């Protein structure tokens, strides 16, 4: 379980998160929607401590993420993350991209790591690309590679930060399909997205961010089809 309790985040004087409360249960899929600059990415970065917080608390499976004694590298093994930019390691083949962290972080042997990587790459439909260099692949394929790379750590949670925003429109579908696959597998996911219909159809709940606060949160169908707050209605009418 991921719990955010009154989380505050500042960049200098700029307050980006102003008291975020959110809890995500195992197996749940939550989508985060909201305008650009409302703090969606920042919240994800705070969950695996790529960013520090200035107030409140984030607890993942009973571990206080921002406590000084927390082993962050150990924590991050359990929280996979995929970014808007696919960030393939360009000097490694597709297989090596996925096998690197299991070897370094989990201490797997070369054989084991290869086995894990093959399995995950097949799962996201890249089984025929193992020895290709990622720069030779489309954005959609590279984004699926990034998902396989995160899955290879066998995380308990996955965070997705607008993973389709940098893709050509015709490549969005294949990546969303991969996310659906994960949700069917029962993965716990927090998905920051601009794909409103994806948020409605795949997630259990949707949270609407506005200027660093969760303005409204509720069951996906209800929040998208029948939002209660004026700001949510406004935002949804603009993006649809």
């Amino acid at each position, binding site marked *: 379980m991921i719990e955010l309790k009154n989380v505050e985040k500042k960049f200098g004087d700029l307050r980006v998160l102003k008291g975020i409360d959110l809890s995500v249960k195992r197996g749940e899929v939550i989508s985060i929607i909201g305008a650009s600059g409302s703090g969606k990415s920042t919240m994800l970065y705070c969950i695996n401590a790529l960013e520090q917080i200035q107030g409140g608390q984030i607890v993942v499976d009973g571990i206080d993420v921002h406590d000084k004694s927390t082993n962050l590298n150990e924590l991050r093994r359990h929280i996979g993350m995929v970014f808007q930019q696919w*960030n393939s*390691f*360009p000097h490694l083949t597709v297989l090596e991209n996925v096998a690197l962290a299991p070897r370094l*972080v989990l201490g797997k042997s070369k054989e084991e790591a290869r086995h894990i990587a093959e399995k995950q790459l097949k799962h996201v439909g890249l089984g025929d690309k193992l020895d290709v260099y990622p720069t030779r692949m489309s954005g959609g394929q590279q984004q699926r590679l990034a998902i396989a790379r995160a899955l290879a750590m066998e995380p308990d949670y996955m965070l997705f930060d607008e993973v389709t925003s940098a893709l050509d429109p015709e490549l969005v579908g294949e990546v969303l399909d991969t996310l659906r696959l994960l949700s069917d597998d029962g993965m716990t996911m927090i998905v920051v997205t601009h794909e409103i219909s994806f948020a409605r159809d795949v997630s259990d709940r949707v949270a609407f961010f506005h200027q660093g606060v969760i303005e409204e949160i509720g069951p996906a169908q209800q929040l998208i089809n029948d939002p209660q707050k004026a700001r949510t209605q406004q935002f949804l009418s603009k993006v649809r």
Partner: protein
Amino acid sequence: MSSDASAIQFFSGFQVNDLWFLAEAAGGTLLISAIAISVGTFFGCLFGWALTASRWTSLTLGSVLDVFRSVPLIIQLLLFFNFFPIIGLPIDPFAAGSIVLIFYTSALVAQVARGGIEAVPASMRRASRSLGMTYWQDMRYVVWPVGLRAVLPAWAGVALGVLKDSALVSVLGYLELLRASQILITRTQEPFIILSIVGLFYFALSYPISKTTAKLEQRWQYD
């Protein structure tokens, strides 16, 4: 009679033995450049990393390195070489030349290394950290190879430049190619032959650097 004979010997033409003399001098150039480039690259990488590590190091170390980059090498050499005898510690030309060249090289390499580290997108580094890699694992397995590929040509430029700039150590009296060529030209009065040979020696010393880096670049074309 006898004074004529010695004069003739002194102003004799270019001889085969002189080739050995030049080869030995090329060894001098090779030795001092190899030391400067290898040790200078090592420290340059450390400094380059320090430049990116914090604002404070970037400011302080950055300005120190700027001094080494901007004061002409020949002035650095003469200052350094003449400074030690003043404080009662004589230093030989080779040691003085090596030390100054190492500083100079590391100042140049530091900027290249900083550029290499900064060439790796912040989001790529976040991705590797999010996989649970430590700071140093990220450095070793992602930043180093990706950054190296980005700045290898720039590094080769620095290395080739240092090889040529090592000629300036001749002002301290260290025997390397330039100094040897001056000695031979004075004796033989055949500058054309001698400078051509010296040019060939420099080319032979540079070739492995440019060839190796070009090969690596080709192999590292991401495909």
